[in-house]
C-alpha cells in the first residue's frame, strides 16, 4: 500500500467509529485526540478494527504509535504490505 492508502485505511476506520465527526481536514501531525472527540474506548476500537479488517495485532506498548495520522502511517505501512 502507498502511504496515502495506509492513511485512508486509518481514516476509514475512524469514520466507522465516529460517523458524526468531520474528517476532511484532519492534520497528520496533530494528535487525533486533540482534533476529534475520541476517548480511550474509541481508541481501542481502532486497534480492534485493525485486527478484524487487516489481521494486524497492535500490542498495548505500541498504542502511542497511533497517536497522530502521521505516526499511524509510519507504524502501519510495514504491516500493511499486501
Amino acid at each position, binding site marked *: 500500500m502507498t502511504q496515502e492508502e495506509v492513511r485512508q485505511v486509518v481514516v476509514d476506520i475512524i469514520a466507522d*467509529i465516529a460517523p*458524526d*465527526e468531520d474528517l476532511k481536514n484532519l492534520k497528520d501531525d496533530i494528535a487525533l485526540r486533540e482534533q476529534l472527540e475520541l*476517548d480511550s*474506548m*474509541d481508541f481501542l476500537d481502532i486497534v*480492534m478494527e485493525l485486527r478484524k479488517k487487516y489481521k494486524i495485532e497492535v500490542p498495548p506498548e505500541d498504542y502511542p504509535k497511533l497517536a497522530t495520522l502521521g505516526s499511524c502511517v509510519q507504524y502501519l505501512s510495514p504491516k500493511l504490505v499486501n
Partner: protein
Amino acid sequence: MNQIYDVVIIGAGMSGLAATIRALMFDKNVLLLEKHSIAGGLNSYYSRGSRDFDVGLHALTNYANPKLKHKNVNNNNNSDNSSSDNHSSNISNLRANLRANYNPNAFLKVLRQLRIPFDKMDLQQQRISKIDFAYQGCTLKFSNEMELLISEVKEYFPKEIDNFIKLINFVVSYSDDNLYQPYLSAKEKVSEIIKDPLLLEMIFTPLFLYGSSWENDMDYSQFVIMFRSIFLEGFSKPKGGVRTIINLLLSRIQEECDKNAIYKIEKVLQFNKKVSSLKLKDGKDGKDGEWEITLHSGEIIQSKKVISTIGYVETMGLVEKLEKEKLAKKDSEHSELVGNLSFTETILILDKEIPANYQDTSIIFYNNNSLNKFFYNKPKDNVDSNSSVVCFPNNFGVNSLSSTSSSLLSSSESMIRFSMLANYQLWSKYSREEYIIEKARLLKTSKTLLKKLLPTIDSGDTGQAKIIDHDIFTPRTIHKYTGHLQGSIYGAKLKFKDGRLPTANCHNLFLAGTDQGFLGIVGALLSGVTIANFYINQE
C-alpha cells in the same frame, strides 16, 4: 452440552443488549438469556387494546447534538462582555471552564461504541421542564439550554446565584477519576455551597427521581453525574419511544451476526429462558473452571464468563453455594443490598391534544410537601401522593401547534404519565380485591393532581380534553416482570462500580446495569458497554 460459550449475558434489558453488541464486535461466542418474551427489561413496551405503551420512558438524560459541539457552551456569545455585572462575568468564566474541562457526552460515547448513528435515534428535545414546589409557590424552569436555569435561580434566589454558578463550576471540574471513590454524602457537600435550604431541595429533586438508589441523599459522584446529565445536558426522547431504542439495539445485534456466518441471531439472543442457578465448576489443578448455567427448563449451558444484569442480590441468589449464606443474613444487612425505592406509574389517555397553554411543558417534578423538603424515600402509605414526576410525552420536539408529536398514539390523542414513590411491601401483600381497590384509589389520586395542574381537563366543559383510557402499574408489576426484588428501579444502595462481585467464588462473574451503578437508560447502556469492554477480552 458440547459447546462452551466465551460469555453468557443474563438479561436483555438496556445493559444486556449493549454488552451483547460489544461481545459480538469482539468476535466472541456470546449468548444472551432473557426470561421474558421480549427485550427491554425495566424499559420495555406493551400494547393494551389498540394502544402502544412504553413501560418507563419519560425521557433520556444526557442530551447532546453531535453537530453542535459543546452546545451548552457556545450558543450565546452575546451580551456577556458588554455587561459588567458580576454574574455575567461569572457566567463567562463558567463557559470557559466548560470549554476547557467538559468531557465527551456519555450518550454520544455510547452510541459510538455501539455504532448507532445519532440521527437514527430520531430524538425530540424537551421543551421546558419544571421543578414545582407547589406548597411554597416556587417553580424553577429548566431546558436543554443551561442559561434558563441560571436565570431562574437568579430571579427567585438572587442571593444564591453566585453560589449556584460556583456549584456548576465544581460539577464541571469534577474529575472522572473521582467517580470510583467511596460514598460521600452529596447533601452535605452541596450544602457547603448552596445555603438556601429550599433551593437545595429543589436542585436535588429531579436528580433523586432520575438517579438515586439512596433515600434522601445520594453519593456525591452520582450527584455530579446526574447534575451533568440533567441540568447541563438535558432531556430528549425518540419520537417512536422506547421501541426505537430497542429496535436499533436488536438490529445492531442482527448486523453483527450477519457479518459472521457462525452466529445466528436466534442462537445468540434467546427469550423465555430464565436462569435458575449459576455454579462455578472446579477446573484442573485447583483452578476455577467454567460456569455452569442452569435454566428453569433444566437445560444446562457452559460459559467461560458470565455478565449478569439482574441485580446484585438477585445474582447472588443464583449462585448456589451462597444462597444459604444470603438467607441467613439479617434484614438490616439486606437493606444495603436490596433497593427500597420503587414507583407506581399512572398513564392517562386524553381524547384531544394537551391544552394549548400546557404544550410548552415536558416534565414536571412536582412536590407539595409543607416542610420545605422533598421526601425521597419509601412512603408510609402505598404511594406518596405529595410528590410526582408528571410527564407529557407529546410535549417534546418543536412545538408546531397542529402536530404535537408522539407517534405512539393516533394524532388527536395525547398522554400524561405520573410516577409516584411507592411502598413495595404494601402493594405486594394486597389480596386481588384489595389490589384492584388500591389501584382505583391511585387513579383517583393521579386525577386529583391533574386537576391541580391542568384544571380544564376532564372538567366536563364542552371542547375540553377528556380522559378516555388509563393504565396503571405498581412495584408488584415491576417485580413480576423484571425480577427486581422489591420492584426496585435503581437497585441496591451499595454499588459495584468495577462490576466485580465482592465475594469469593465469583471469578469471571461480573455485574452490569443497575447494580453496577450507572442508572437510567443511558446509564444502563454505558454500563453494558463498559463492563463488556473491560472484562470480555481479559484472560
